[in-house]
Each structure stands twice: as structure tokens, then as C-alpha cells.
């Protein structure tokens, strides 16, 4: 495989909890992202799945330094983003972009969509003069399947799917290499989702984009990604290619997650057995000791409550689970 474009190592994002009263002491942390390591290779789509609250969105934001990481580092195309000055970071931001979850909240209702798409062009000084800006905005809108004639309309005049296309056009404006797609289809209707996913795929092929695709919907992630990282309570529990993850999930959490995904086919559904997990996801303020999945894990045994399993490479994938600790794994 080619060189990694983005390398994340031991990324931590903690949100401090302060005591109430006159002296606001730092009493604890919400460990939203607690030691996450992965790479995204040039031209690939890495899917990041997990349930709400597992820290997947925070990971995406920290990658672009839209949230300051508490620890660890993110290397983008060879340069460590935590060491960059504000102006260097701004230059780098041209090369990375984000598509947000909620197309209703992520577009300024008082700006025309032409202005919304032109804003990044102006900020980064990518267009000289009005005619060029006009042409470039028209091209971008066309690229995402909207008519350039719509440029003077406002977000409320568009449907959810169309708004998400505006969000995509804005992300593409600076010709980025890397786009973090944070639940880009979750807020859309089923028949509209497919159109947006097809568009993202086409754009990747045409422009050679690299995606981090964050979603809770495992079917969508599987459809879309080359490799998939599964996250639970601030940690990555398994990374595998899409076929491997589907056919042979190794981590007990991945197995449960996959078995819970409903298949739109009653005949298949009757032949499946679900692994129903007990209870709820624990609080990231005070996560369980050792492997943080152990209180809900149907296969928990001796070392699980005490030792924190490392993400180890086994047969072409990475798993953080004591079940596989002795199977010739090497430290990843």
C-alpha cells in the first residue's frame, strides 16, 4: 500500500470536569478519546464506526485540530500538526476539509449558497477577482450535482440532500487531499442517502480524495470503506479491511455490533442469531479497568478486568483483545 497520508498515534482528547464553587478545581476528565492509533493511506476510505458517545466525532475534530488534543500526535503528510503555528496550520487546513453531520445546522442560514461555497476560496486567497470566483463556484456546484443557477438561493430553499451537497461543495472548494466525513448521511432519508454516497464515491475516484468516513451505521460504512476501524468508549478495538471485518470479526464487540445490524431481508434475518449485549455503554468519566469492554463482554475471562489489551496485529488486521494475545500477535 502507499504511504499513509494521516498518521494518528496515541491520540487523547480529555474534557476537564471542574468542581463547582469559588475555586474550580479540576476533579476529573471525560476521556472522550483515550489513546487512539491508526493510519489513513492516500486514496483510501477508512471507516470509523462506533455507537454514540464512543468518541468518533471527537477523533475526527482532533485530526483537523478543530479540538486541541490532550495528548498524542497527528501527522499529516509528514508534518506533526501539533507543532504548527497558526499560519502554518491555516495553510495545512487548505488540504483537509470536513463534511458535517447536520446539513441544517452546518450552513449559515443568512448566506446564499454561492457565498457559502466561495468563503473558503476567499479565506485562502485561491481566486483572483470576481469572474474567477464566479466560475469556480459554478464549477463546484456543478460538481456536486447542483445547478450553478442556484447560487443566489439560501439554504432554507433546499432539501436535506441538496444542503448536504452544498456542504460537500464547500469542503471541495480548496481542493483538499483529505476529507473527514462526519455522519454525512445520517440526517437524510433513505432514498436520498444513496445519492449522496454515490456522489462521494464518484468524487473520490475523480479527484483522488482520501476519506475518513465516520458513521454509526455499519452497513453504510461497509459499503463505503476500504478499511474499517471499530471504536468503543474512546478506544479502537479492531481495524480490518471491509471483507475481513464482515466475514470474520474477531473482537467480541465487533461481533456483537455486526450481529445487531438489521439486514433488510427477512429470510436472512431468520437464519441469524444475535448477540445481545447486556446493559449500556459505561461512562467515559470513569471507564472500567483493564479492557473497558469487559463488563459487557460475553467472552471476558481472567486477564480482562486487570490488563488493558494492546492493539495487536494478527493475520492482516489489528485487534485489542486478550483472546488473541497468544496467537502469534505482534505489537502493532
Amino acid at each position, binding site marked *: 500500500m502507499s504511504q499513509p497520508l494521516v498518521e494518528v498515534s496515541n491520540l487523547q482528547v480529555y474534557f476537564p470536569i471542574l468542581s463547582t464553587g469559588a475555586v474550580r478545581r479540576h476533579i476529573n476528565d471525560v476521556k472522550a478519546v483515550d489513546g487512539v492509533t491508526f493510519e489513513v493511506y492516500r486514496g483510501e476510505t477508512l471507516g470509523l464506526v462506533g455507537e454514540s458517545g464512543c468518541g468518533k466525532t471527537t477523533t475526527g475534530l482532533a485530526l483537523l485540530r478543530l479540538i486541541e488534543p490532550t495528548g498524542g500526535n497527528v501527522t499529516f503528510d509528514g508534518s506533526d500538526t501539533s507543532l504548527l503555528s497558526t499560519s502554518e496550520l491555516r495553510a495545512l487546513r487548505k488540504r483537509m476539509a470536513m463534511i458535517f453531520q447536520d446539513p441544517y445546522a452546518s450552513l449559515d442560514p443568512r448566506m446564499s449558497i454561492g457565498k457559502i461555497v466561495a468563503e473558503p476560496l476567499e479565506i485562502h486567497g485561491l481566486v483572483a477577482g470576481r469572474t474567477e470566483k464566479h466560475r469556480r463556484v459554478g464549477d463546484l456546484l456543478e460538481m456536486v450535482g447542483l445547478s450553478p443557477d442556484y447560487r443566489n438561493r439560501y439554504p432554507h430553499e433546499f432539501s436535506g440532500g441538496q444542503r448536504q451537497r452544498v456542504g460537500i461543495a464547500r469542503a471541495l472548494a480548496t481542493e483538499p487531499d483529505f476529507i473527514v466525513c462526519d455522519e454525512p448521511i445520517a440526517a437524510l432519508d433513505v*432514498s436520498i442517502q444513496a445519492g449522496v454516497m454515490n456522489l462521494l464515491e464518484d468524487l473520490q475516484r475523480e479527484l483522488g480524495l482520501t476519506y475518513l468516513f465516520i458513521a454509526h451505521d455499519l452497513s453504510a460504512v461497509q459499503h463505503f470503506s476500504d478499511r474499517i476501524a471499530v471504536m468503543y468508549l474512546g478506544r479502537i478495538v479492531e481495524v480490518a479491511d*471491509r471483507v475481513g471485518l464482515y466475514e470474520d470479526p474477531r473482537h467480541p464487540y465487533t461481533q456483537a455490533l455486526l450481529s445487531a445490524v438489521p439486514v433488510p431481508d*427477512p429470510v436472512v434475518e431468520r437464519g441469524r442469531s444475535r448477540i445481545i449485549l447486556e446493559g449500556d455503554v459505561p461512562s467515559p468519566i470513569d471507564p472500567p479497568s483493564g479492557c473497558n469492554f469487559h463488563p459487557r463482554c460475553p467472552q471476558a475471562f481472567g486477564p480482562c478486568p486487570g490488563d488493558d489489551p494492546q492493539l495487536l496485529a494478527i493475520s492482516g488486521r489489528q485487534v485489542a483483545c486478550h483472546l488473541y494475545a497468544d496467537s502469534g500477535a505482534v505489537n502493532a
Partner: protein
Amino acid sequence: MSEPVLEVRNLQVRFGTKRGVAEVVNGISYDLHAGETLAIVGESGSGKSVGVLALMGLLPQPPAAVSGSVQYRGEELLGLSPKQWRGIRGKGMAMIFQDPMTSLNPVRTVGYQLTESMAIHLNLKGDPARSRAIELLDVVGIPSPEARVDDYPHQLSGGMRQRVMIAMGLACDPDVLIADEATTALDVTTQAQITDLVAELQDRVGMAVIWITHDLGVVASIADRVHVMYGGRFMEQAGADDIYGTPQHPYTEGLLGSLPMPGAQRPDKLMTIPGLPPDPVAMPAGCPFAPRCAYADEASCLDTVPAMEGVGDGHEAACHHPLGVNA
């Protein structure tokens, strides 16, 4: 099969708006039998939620105008007085709402909210009501129910709140339970817990369930029959196997084709349905799906609303050009 518990005939709901009359539900009819699970599937704006709110008498009139007929065990429900309704809601028919965060009362304990309907329908108060509330919380799988019964909704997780909603729905042993997007706000692992729970309770007490959802995946494992709704009408209705196996309506086909299937094989492209759902203020004259349909022709589809016709055993579609078995 026995007499249906619920008979809905030509149910219509309209709203007066500034822009004109919004035709949200345009004549839907169905029967619901005891112990059966009926899934009503549609996208946002298809009228599926409004359709069941009308069923429960929960639409204020005006602005809504509800017509048609809804019979519960032979008794006509439309036009009942608020007092008469109170005898039916909760006991005969109960509803689980979509968003447990906003549909529970934040300033009352779980126990208070659970026992409220018991006092009305079962004449249970005080300690007996409290022990039934604890029993119900246990049934829906809430750990240490004796302690949880005194909790407020904000002390519970999303999945637990949804379980409390279900427990409230079950409080007076209803014949019909309506679940309106009951798992949409939940994660998949919690969703699996909830669908399994409802199916298990249904087996135990024999109630009928109407499951309203936009997600064809969720209902595949639990529905006996599936009705696909679009533009306020049923487009297709059949047993679950037929809907997924041999869809006859182009809209159903499009919906199924646009779903990414979990699996190792990746189709080249997802099927897309061009265009947008119809505006309820300006419904098309013919089939509501015609403007987006690949098979539509000018002769019939744009002018005439297709009637619901049999296309197979227990399988009906409202389409001038059903796809045929080999489609």
C-alpha cells in the same frame, strides 16, 4: 383468522395551512389482528406518523381534519369525546413515541409516570401500583428496578428511557401497541435489545403491534406484514417475505435498492430515486410517485391514482405498471 382488533377504512388527514390544504394522509385502509406485527414503512413526510396519531385521537381538530373510519373491536373511534377516548388510550391502544428524551416528563419520577395510567384504567394506587411499576421495569429489562423506579428521566440512558416508554405503553395490558420510530434514536446494539424485547412481550401477552419506521432493515426481522407508504397513501402491502423478496411497486424497489446491504459483496452503485417527495399542499393528480418513477407513462400514471390491486397471494400494489414476479 379471527376478527380484526382494529379496522381502518379510508383514513384521511388534512391540515389547513397558509399555503393551502395539506393532504397528509390520503385514504389508507388496513386491518390489524391480535398478535400480529404490522410495519408501516415510509420516508419523512410520507404521513406515517400522522396516520397513527389520528388513530389514537391525538390530532387536535382543527387544524387537522380527520375523516374515514377507525373501528376498535367494532367501536367507531373517530368522533369520540375526550372522556370516551380516555377509556381507550392506554388500555385498548397504547403508543410508544419516537424520542424518549422529550416524551417523558422531566420533573416526575419514572414511577409516577408509570402509575398514572394504572390509577385510571386498573384502579391501582399506592403500593400495589408501585409494585406493578417495579414489575414492569423488570419485564423491560431495567436492572435494579426497585431503585430505578424513583429515578428521574435524566438519570437514565437513552436505551433505558426507551425501555421506560415501553413499560408505560404496557402498563395497562393494551391490545394494540403502536411504536412510532421507537428505536430510531438508539444505537444498533440497543435497537436490537428493544426489538427483541417487544417481540418477546408480544408472544407472551398476544398484543398486536404497529411498527412505524423509515428503516426497512429494522422491520425485516419482526414484521408479519409490511405496508409501504408514500405521499400519504399505501403503495404496496404484503407479507414481509414478499415485500423484500419480490417487490412489485417501483418505489419499494427503489427503497430496497438504495439500502447498502451489510455483506462482503459491494454493489457497484446504490440505486437512487431521483427527485423529491411530493409537497402535501400540491399533491400530483395521479400516482404520487409518478414524477420520480422510471416506469411512469403519461397515459395513466400522471392522471389517475392507481387502485390497490392484488398482484399475488396476500400481496397488493397500487401501481399501473407493477414490476411482475421476475423483476
